[in-house]
């Protein structure tokens, strides 16, 4: 079966002669390159597996002709689109066919990254040294001195120098095969057809990324007859774009490709979902004020563990059947700067997650206490680390201002990092938001993967609680 349609129904609805004629100008090299591609698809028997990606440029209508799965890409993006296809269905054979403006100018990023990624794809690059579809402008591969509509006096070096794509791609590690071929005589055409077939075969075998640059003729914009254009490519282009194999290496074939799993158990395990405890809904054991909502601010320097403590508080609340939210905010310094956490816990749904006027503040350093202490709601709690804050500022008299040696207790335990858990223990004792056991089981669970740390954290919690009760 031919990989070219016998009638081009997409070409002007297959009306008249267009049903069997291409849209290319007389003598255009695209017609040859794409026939060789079709022949390679036939020979390799992959017509049913092939997806061709049409570029923007004169070859934009490739999908009129190739009887394979077809996609049309934005200007320059064909290799990115091709990768999307390949990764979606690795068994498909994906070919990106692009011209010089598309591949070497606007799409340079896409082609280089696709090439160096190395995943099996085949790119056919038609280089005719000029923009065809837009009417003969300067291309990235236009020769120095060559006249185009945007280099009317010839390309000077202030317009940049021609890009040698085959050489550029060949010096990357990942591609397995790179060759530059031409179409100007019978011998070159045979080579071109063979190169295209080889490039496609390497993909079918899973070897890797392959790239064939084809020097094609654009008689129209060279202002030459097709036969003169053949000569021009031979005499003018090949000195700048030498023909030949630029890279041909053996590589470990790609694959086997991962098979997407939709097994519900696997999906739930991957996202960390766990069965309901005892198959029953968790009990709602808590002591929230009648308003049904509490706000907490935990504040310190980066490294004080305010965020971790906030997350433990949230987890404990949710384990207790409540709703809870946490929002972190960090100072401008990315390391060691300020680190504040807003936590809200509600009986129903947390409305606003913001805790700018918290019911309870935990301050790990003096700036945090100075900044947030005054914001604590009347009747609320301001707990601070007395080991590091020598003198607390005066706050609203209704606020319970409580300093405890939080860092000191952690140091006594030989584990200064657990000071945030000491603070949680104290917070629990001072507010009675949950039964102590609720917190402890949340801590145990959070440390499931580091069992060695469970005991010191549990002890930190208990010591914090005890210090608060004794204060």
């Amino acid at each position: 079966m031919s990989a070219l349609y016998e009638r081009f129904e997409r070409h002007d609805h297959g009306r008249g002669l267009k049903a069997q004629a291409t849209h290319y100008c007389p003598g255009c090299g695209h017609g040859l390159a794409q026939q060789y591609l079709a022949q390679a698809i036939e020979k390799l028997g992959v017509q049913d597996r092939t997806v061709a990606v049409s570029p923007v440029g004169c070859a934009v209508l490739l999908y009129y002709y190739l009887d394979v799965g077809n996609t049309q890409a934005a200007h320059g993006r064909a290799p990115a689109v091709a990768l999307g296809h390949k990764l979606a269905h690795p068994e498909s054979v994906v070919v990106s066919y692009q011209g010089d403006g598309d591949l070497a100018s606007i799409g340079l990023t896409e082609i280089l990254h696709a090439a160096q990624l190395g995943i099996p794809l085949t790119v056919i690059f038609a280089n005719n040294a000029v923009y065809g579809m837009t009417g003969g402008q300067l291309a990235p591969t236009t020769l120095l001195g060559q006249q185009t509509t945007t280099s009317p006096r010839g390309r000077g070096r202030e317009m940049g120098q021609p890009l040698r794509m085959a050489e550029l791609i060949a010096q990357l590690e990942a591609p397995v095969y790179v060759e530059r071929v031409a179409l100007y005589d019978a011998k070159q055409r045979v080579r071109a057809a063979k190169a295209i077939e080889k490039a496609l075969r390497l993909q079918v075998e899973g070897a890797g990324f392959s790239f064939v640059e084809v020097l094609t003729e654009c008689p129209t914009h060279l202002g030459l007859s097709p036969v003169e254009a053949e000569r021009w490519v031979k005499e003018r282009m090949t000195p700048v774009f030498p023909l030949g194999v630029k890279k041909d290496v053996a590589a470990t074939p790609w694959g086997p490709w991962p098979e997407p799993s939709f097994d519900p158990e696997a999906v739930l395990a991957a996202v960390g979902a766990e069965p309901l405890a005892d198959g029953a809904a968790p009990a709602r054991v808590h002591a929230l004020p009648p308003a049904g909502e509490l706000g907490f601010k935990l504040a310190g320097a980066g490294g004080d563990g305010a965020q971790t403590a906030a997350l433990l508080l949230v987890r404990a609340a949710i384990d207790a059947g409540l709703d809870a939210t946490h929002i972190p905010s960090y100072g401008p310094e990315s390391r060691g700067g300020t680190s504040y956490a807003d936590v809200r816990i509600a009986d129903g749904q947390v409305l606003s997650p913001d805790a700018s006027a918290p019911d309870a503040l935990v301050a790990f350093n003096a700036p945090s206490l100075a900044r947030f202490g005054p914001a604590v709601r009347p009747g609320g709690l301001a707990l601070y680390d007395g080991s590091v804050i020598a003198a607390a500022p005066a706050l609203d008299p209704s606020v319970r201002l409580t300093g405890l040696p939080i860092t000191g207790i952690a140091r006594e335990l030989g584990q200064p990092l657990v000071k945030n858990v000491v603070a949680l223990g104290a917070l629990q004792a001072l507010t009675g938001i949950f039964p102590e056991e609720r917190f402890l089981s949340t801590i145990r669970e959070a440390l499931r993967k580091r069992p060695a740390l469970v005991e010191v954290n549990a002890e930190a919690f208990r010591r914090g609680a005890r210090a608060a009760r004794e204060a």
Partner: protein
Amino acid sequence: MARMEARPKPVLREDWCKGCGRCVEVCARSCIAPGEQVNPGSGLVPISLRLDDCNGCGLCVDACPEPYALVAAGLAGRLAAARPPAPWAPPPEVPAERVPVPERRPLVLKGTHASAVGALLAGCRHFFGYPITPSTEGAELMAKLLPALGGTFLQAASEVATVNHMYGCGGAGRPSMTFTSSPGFSLMLEGISYMIGAEVPGVFVDVMRAGPGLGNIGPEQSDLKLACRGLGHGNTHAPVLAPATPQEMLDFTALAFELAFRYRTPVVVLADGHLGQMTGKVSLPRELARPGLPSWAVPGDAAHRGNLVCSLLLEEAQQERHNLALLEKYARVTAAEQRAELFRCDDAELVLVACNSPARTAKGAVQALRAEGIRAGLFRPQTVWPFPIRHLAPLLGRARAILVVEASDGQLEDELRLALSHAGRAPGEIRHVRRLGGVLPAEGEILAAARSLSAEVRQ
């Protein structure tokens, strides 16, 4: 293909010969000469062929750029007999399946992570993205979790590459997604226009940050206008979902995949930097999705070989028809997909309108206003496009004023005003609380504005 062995002599199909002359030179037997007569069908001058000395070498056939001008004899007969095929009939769709799962313990997740989990539960196994704060944590979680599910994570060369990977993957019929943030979203717009034009599904989670330009990484609702009015060039619209909680980050991301395939469209999930970082309780849905394969897809198999994913329609009339079909689709989406949460709106005289993080602060404000005896409610669009005017309209009889609360320069208010105007509704006063630059409206300023507006309209 040096076909030097004797083979049948070539056949010239004159109507299709463009007279380029490339075959002339290659014939060592001088069988081919430039022609002189204009072909009345093509208007071109085909070559003339005298095959007396022809040895069937085939070099002329290999030199001809036209596939069907100079051909082997057998093919010529087939080509002459070729009739227009029956219209291409793609195979039936393989529908997506929904698999029930037992109830699980709620997770505690930040917004970006909840969104990633939602994508996995919705059957997404392909992620493409470019790191950008504050969206990257979602991508990082996908990078961590996808391998265990046989999925693919590709860090793209840029946002431009990202959207085109999605175009390819979606065109192949597979669900794919990205996480990005405002500057990255801007870069994706060209590709989104192509996706809309070619009707390719894909999910974009945009964790918005402050602009313009590089702006900063603080939360701003900076892309509401882009998402609702500016999805690239041309006649472009796509569903835009606006979650306000980590739970909705999961639910709406999963919903986005459903909508993307139901309507063959990209879908935008607009979050903000605040919501992306917000951790909360997230209950898992009781169903997972196993994606199917749409009939229009181009997966690279025999059944779908005749399919084409393309936004190019050269004929103006065809392009216009395509646009009318898109408009018809937008109308269907508008009719079926308006979503909103109404909080204490039943008897509200003052309706606060807000989405994303500002909606949560506004919700707290509503509660406080109610405690003061002000009959306030919150209208929270969950779809910003289509704007849920259907859910708002019934409130307009009682409501005397609207207060739009947003972290932008009025992008939500513009959507609201446009929707009201299209619906022919002229409500009372519309005021706003707006913050910009990474600052969210605070409860205090919402309360102050609401109190004074309420007092004013009561007079």
